[in-house]
């Protein structure tokens, strides 16, 4: 005889909880509460038990008995172990996990004024290192899970959004943080192996918000803030600079240009950093609606994110829509549909990178050599005005060089670049995912999903006739050069589809056995087409015409890549009394990326856990509420080597033959040789974990220890020049290990009126390269142009160490030079940099190059504290790394002392004479410098440890009649700050820096004028109605 039970679900304060779930135990019957928190459910009989649950609250069970009215008030859960977490191809209760999974929920992400969800992850999960190495508007951070997983195939994790394994991390970055319900991070291979060849660097699973049955709820969040550069680099002002140039010319016995003999106070004193930085404005708005019936639910969110950068001419705007629908088509058939179109515009400019080789460059067939403005702003002589009286931008070479050879090379006026250089990308994306689930028999479900993604982007570059660059060093407002004009437009079309098909069987047998079996088959393919049109040598100087059509020479290129993956997989989860937990999985992948001999590979995994806390003998005490030990082993892979890497193709190399000036003749040459044995990088991870909950989980402590052994490393290995076809090629070579320890603790420190919680984590990872090549040799990379092999991967050391000379001082005087080892290439004089003669052979040469530091941190940590008092809330997030080194490649110019460009204020402590030797470490200024000042050494190496106050958020929640009269359910006002304070010894803009963030190679911690991080203050409002 079925009974109807009605009631209300509230929180401890009596506020209604809409969307709470009520389920009949041991059946599939369930309903959700409406907007007023009420529910109504039919239960089979009086013996039925109802389970009340809501995310963030402790789940409760109540027997129906004779009640037809059952009001329940749920307590806020401290750390709900009944919380369901999403793992690959399914979900399970957190307490039944036998693997290492970290999670953050929407509460930990909301109210943050950040462009990408990744930024909000920083400092929140043990073992997940989020590095925001560049501050360009909309720029995404680099996420590393458990250290550097690969040498040459990239260490980016796989991102899975609502079951869709994304083709590139960038698709994750473009999700509006407001859309995210939760993010899970599968850290160990036992968890990640279900994604086989893509799981080697860990997996980040994103679940977006979905609708709940009930009246439609609306939610609006608006957040707006201002941003500034958080730090400056100290360079010389005009009087200091003039004195320094005089010294340099005197040391080299050269005639000083007359300009430098004028009274410095009569010269301009330009602060070039003031000229490139500005106050940026960030705005973020989102409006969501969700609701539905018990048959169909929906969620729709529209959001706008707009950010003007702290460097002029940079701007990012994004418009997102995300809609989802879940429908029960029949008793056995469920349907869901998700669609997320977005549109973004990104105005970039040449900011990071070298002197005349900015990171964002390469506009034409002949690179235009536009300078990186961040470094140019440091190098511009302060005695130059921004503009000349005639309106021209000042140009160091044309103004100062004819007067006396002051300059070799040219730091182009950064203000000219910011004003005149154009680079805009517009991107339209469409991600959709459609699923059908059919229950064949009770417990056996077949699910099929089809995902499709299209990314269309269009990028336009333009260098006008008036912009000074390598192509036209003297171009200026009054000297437009038609031949200087470069226009380029590039269109890229990316299509990706995935079909995932699974059979899932869940059965309970005996009284306490619970078994879930999963079998699946999937295939996924990605294609990318790119066309570019280049226009060179424009026909008119009008800066408005930015189209390649208006050019003297029009050229075009076409590019194509594709890859495909087919997979089958199987997984079994078993538990006994929720006490003994076992999981096993296996996946076989076939990939188009590898050599024909090695296209398939299999990835097995096992894990087990014992919840000792559930044993009878543990139930007698109430101090320890959870005590779980778990262990797992798994194999996963990495296939991030780009497409067609195993194959050999020829590219065009032209020459000219014939009478007169000759005519171009087409030629082709192979660029590498085929490698039919190129195969997967495989990681074998062993993970042991311990979780202890004390005082009803008021204190929850997790520790994980892991050993990850990666072999068949995919490596773009430098090959001897005599190989001829390429300077590096992809091979499987060597092995590497990562050992780590992760601790996290979540505590409720105070529970009363003032509620205070702390989440803290710290992670230690030790990387060691075990073997590289058969001859035990190293693999080298360049930290910057001219810094050859300054980053090395050496067996027995941690990956990516900096190598260079070790400075022990400067040669104080002639006697010091005579008594010391000297620079072999050209000798040394007093005031030159003095390096350690490591091998004691009496001269300083390449054999004295040693390991001078590692960019990998010794540990990383994060801590969030939250306080709630009445209607106020306060949270702050601290995050830091310790023990990493930075290689500053800008110092190749800014700490070089060749008496032309401006330099850092270090120069004030330079060697000037034997009686005025400065600080003993800073060399002399000279116009012709010895090569000893341009090599990599400990002069370039800096401690990159830092502690950052990443986020502070102070909120106030409004309640009361006025709101009710306005039909507003909730209103919250908050002020927030990002990157407020950074404690570090590093002089540069940002200790998280890495100019090679986009490179798959293990080049970390290199600073060469990257875009600094903004410091943002914002104010926001959240309204629910």
């Amino acid at each position, binding site marked *: 005889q079925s009974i109807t039970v009605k009631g209300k679900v509230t929180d401890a304060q009596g506020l209604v909880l809409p969307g709470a779930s009520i389920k009949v135990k041991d059946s599939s019957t369930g309903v959700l509460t409406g907007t007023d928190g009420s529910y109504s459910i039919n239960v089979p009989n009086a013996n039925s038990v109802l389970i009340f649950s809501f995310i963030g609250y402790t789940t409760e069970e109540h027997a129906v008995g004779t009640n037809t009215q059952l009001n329940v008030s749920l307590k806020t859960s401290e750390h709900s172990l009944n919380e369901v977490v999403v793992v690959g191809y399914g979900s399970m209760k957190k307490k039944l996990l036998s693997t290492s999974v970290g999670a953050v929920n929407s509460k930990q992400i909301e109210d943050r004024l950040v462009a990408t969800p990744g930024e909000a992850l920083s400092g929140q999960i043990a073992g997940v290192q989020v590095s925001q190495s560049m501050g360009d508007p909309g720029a995404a951070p680099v996420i590393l899970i458990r250290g550097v997983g690969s040498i040459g195939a990239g260490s980016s994790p796989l991102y899975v959004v609502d079951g869709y394994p994304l083709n590139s991390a960038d698709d994750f970055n473009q999700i509006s943080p407001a859309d995210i319900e939760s993010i899970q991070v599968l850290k160990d291979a036992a968890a990640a192996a279900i994604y086989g060849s893509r799981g080697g660097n860990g997996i980040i699973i994103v679940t977006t918000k979905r609708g709940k049955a009930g009246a439609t709820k609306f939610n609006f969040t608006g957040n707006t803030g201002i941003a500034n550069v958080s730090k400056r680099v100290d360079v010389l002002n005009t009087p200091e600079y003039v004195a320094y140039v005089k010294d340099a010319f005197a040391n080299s016995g050269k005639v000083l240009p007359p300009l430098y003999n004028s009274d410095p106070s009569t010269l301009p004193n330009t602060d070039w950093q003031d000229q490139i930085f500005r106050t940026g404005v960030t705005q973020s708005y989102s409006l969501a609606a969700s609701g539905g019936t018990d048959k169909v639910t929906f969620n729709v969110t529209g959001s706008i994110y707009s950010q003007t950068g702290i460097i002029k001419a940079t701007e990012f705007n994004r418009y997102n829509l995300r809609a989802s629908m879940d429908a029960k088509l029949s008793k056995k058939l469920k349907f869901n549909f998700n669609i997320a179109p977005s549109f973004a515009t990104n105005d970039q400019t040449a900011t990071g990178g070298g002197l005349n080789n900015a990171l964002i460059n390469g506009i034409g067939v002949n690179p235009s050599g536009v300078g990186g403005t961040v470094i140019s702003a440091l190098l511009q002589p302060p005695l130059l005005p921004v503009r000349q009286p005639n309106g021209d931008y000042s140009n160091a070479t044309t103004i100062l060089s004819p007067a006396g050879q002051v300059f070799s090379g040219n730091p182009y006026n950064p203000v000219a670049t910011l004003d005149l250089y154009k680079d805009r990308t517009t991107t339209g994306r469409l991600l959709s995912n459609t699923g059908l689930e059919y229950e064949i028999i009770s417990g056996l479900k077949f699910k099929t999903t089809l995902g499709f993604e299209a990314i269309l982007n269009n990028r336009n570059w333009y260098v006008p006739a008036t912009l000074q660059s390598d192509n036209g060093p003297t171009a200026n407002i009054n000297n437009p050069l038609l031949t200087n004009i470069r226009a380029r437009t590039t269109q890229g079309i990316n299509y990706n589809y995935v079909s995932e098909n699974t059979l899932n069987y869940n059965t309970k047998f005996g009284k306490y056995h619970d078994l879930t079996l999963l079998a699946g088959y999937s295939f996924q393919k990605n294609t990318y087409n790119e066309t570019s049109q280049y226009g060179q040598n424009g026909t008119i100087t009008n800066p408005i015409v930015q189209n390649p059509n208006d050019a003297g020479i029009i050229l075009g290129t076409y590019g194509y890549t594709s890859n495909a993956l087919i997979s089958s997989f199987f997984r079994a989860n078993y538990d006994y009394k929720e006490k003994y937990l076992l999981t096993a999985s296996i996946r076989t992948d076939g990939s188009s990326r590898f050599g024909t001999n090695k296209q398939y590979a299999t990835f097995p995994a096992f894990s087990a856990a014992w919840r000792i806390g559930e044993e009878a003998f543990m139930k007698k005490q109430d101090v320890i509420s959870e005590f779980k030990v778990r262990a797992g082993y798994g194999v996963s892979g990495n296939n991030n080597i780009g497409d067609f890497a195993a194959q050999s193709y020829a590219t065009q190399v032209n020459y000219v033959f014939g009478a007169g000036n000759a005519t171009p003749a087409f030629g082709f040459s192979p660029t590498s*040789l085929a490698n039919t044995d190129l195969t997967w990088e495989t990681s074998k991870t062993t993970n042991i974990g311990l979780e202890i909950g004390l005082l009803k989980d008021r204190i929850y402590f997790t520790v994980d220890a892991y050993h990850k052994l990666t072999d068949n490393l995919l490596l773009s290995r430098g090959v001897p020049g005599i190989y001829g076809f390429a300077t590096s090629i992809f091979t499987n070579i060597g092995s590497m290990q990562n050992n780590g320890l992760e601790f996290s603790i979540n505590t409720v420190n105070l529970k009363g009126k003032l509620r205070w919680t702390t989440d803290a984590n710290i992670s230690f990872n030790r990387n060691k390269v075990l073997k590289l090549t058969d001859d035990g040799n190293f693999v080298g990379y360049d930290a910057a142009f001219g810094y050859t092999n300054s980053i090395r991967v050496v067996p027995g050391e941690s990956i990516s160490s900096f190598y260079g000379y070790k400075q022990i001082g400067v040669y104080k005087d002639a006697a010091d030079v005579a008594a010391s080892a000297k620079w072999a290439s050209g000798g040394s004089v007093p005031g030159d940099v003095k390096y350690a003669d490591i091998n004691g052979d009496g001269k300083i040469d390449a054999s004295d190059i040693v390991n001078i530091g590692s960019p990998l941190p010794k540990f990383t940590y994060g801590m969030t504290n939250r306080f709630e008092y009445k209607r106020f809330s306060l949270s702050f997030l601290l995050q830091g790394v310790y023990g990493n080194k930075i290689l500053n490649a800008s110092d190749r110019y800014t700490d070089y002392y060749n008496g032309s460009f401006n330099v850092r204020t270090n120069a004030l402590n330079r060697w000037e004479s034997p009686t005025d030797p400065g600080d003993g470490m800073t060399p002399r200024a000279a116009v012709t410098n010895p090569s000893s000042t341009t090599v990599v050494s400990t002069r370039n190496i800096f401690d990159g440890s830092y502690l950052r106050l990443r986020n502070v958020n102070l909120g106030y929640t409004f309640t009361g009649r006025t709101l009710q009269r306005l039909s507003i359910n909730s209103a919250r006002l908050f002020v927030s700050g990002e990157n407020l304070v950074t404690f570090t010894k590093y002089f540069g803009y940002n200790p998280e820096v890495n100019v090679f963030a986009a490179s798959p190679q293990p080049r970390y911690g290199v600073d060469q004028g990257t875009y600094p991080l903004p410091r943002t203050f914002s104010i926001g409002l959240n309204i629910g109605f």
Partner: protein
Amino acid sequence: CKKSYIELQDPTKISTTDLYADANGLNLAVTAAYGTLQDIYGKGTSGTGMYLFTDVPSDNSNALVSGAGLGDFDLFTVAPENINLTTQWQSFYRCIARCNAIIARAPAVNMTATLRDRYIGEVKFLRALSYFNAVQIWGGVPLVTTEIANIDDALSYGRASVADVYAQIEKDFTDAESVLPVTYATTDLGRATNGAAKAMLGKVYLTEGNFTKCKAKLAELLPKGSNAWGYDLLPNYADIFSTTNEMNKEIIFAVRYTKGGYGTGSPFFNWFIPNQSGSTIATVGGGSGFNSIMQDLVDAFPATDPRKAVSIGTYTTTVNKVTTNYYYTKKYTDVPANANDSNNDWIVIRYADVELMYAEAENEINGPANAISYVNDIRRRAYGNTTNDLTPAQTATQASMRLAIENERRLELNMEGHRWFDLLRTNRAITVMNASFTKYQTKNGANVIQISAPHNLLFPIPLREIQINPKLTQNP
């Protein structure tokens, strides 16, 4: 699983297997091998090229820029780290690898034997030219004459002896000489001829000190005007370098360049003019000052030598009453289409060089008597008269004649990539350079530069190469 689903290929590119499959593919591969000549002699924005090894270190020129390590070539402070060493090394072996692949694969291609033999001859010429330049820069280098199949293979090579490298160079030029044609169709102008192979072979023998063989080989190219190839001295010195007169009858082999945004333009004009000149000399692309004429060369020309005005340009700036003169070579003058994109070819060997080499060999074998007329040939063309012939004092002894020939080569072939190798060949580098440094008080820091053997006579093996393959040993 459908296997074909994951068998994907790039439909936009030619696979390497297809490239070497037929006569047309082989033709493309040979063109790409010629393409490496531009890498070797100078291309684009890297700044590296043969001039850096042949002119900049010498008393003819200096690099007026300290960036990118070019200035170190002037001051004899080139460290093994210097990026230009690496770039140049890679350019040579890129050429050699392309040649090796063609030599290995051509026999299997179904085509006419004559054309196949010609292709093989052409790339043997290119391979020999690469090794000849490399051996003069570094001494013994790895001698690779077959296709390298994998990295382990590449790592198995150490440095070959200088003698072994020269043996291979002689063999390749000799093989090329035997199969290459005397001339090509005009559309193929610029390919290596058997005349070019003979001239280069003569230069190789001379460099090795084998004067008898040198003389015999170069004699095959004599007399001027009526030899089989029509090689001759042009009446007017300036015409040799004109971009409207490329591949004239004095040119035996040149690296060809064509401007226009094709990626095949010549960078030398922009590279070699003063970077202070802005757009006054080059209206497009400005100057770089990579290879500027030194006072020493300006002073070496008698005021009456017409070649001085043809060769040397002066750029003068006066700012605040301080006047500075910059000298630059005018042999590579052409309005660029883009920066580093002009028409000027790089002349590798021309007939005046052949006559002067012949004179040098003759002087070494038999003394001045029969050598004089070949040097005077060059002088008469330059001055347009016989009144400036070599003086009796210059031709008095074998030793004085040596200096006369050396000086004539310096003037006639200035800034064409000969001076440093000439000084090395004649064992005069230390004496001449130290005298020049002293005369002009050229300093590195506080001290006047003085170079010494053997350290300064060879360039360091690029550090990158030694680090990757420790089998390679460094030069002293």
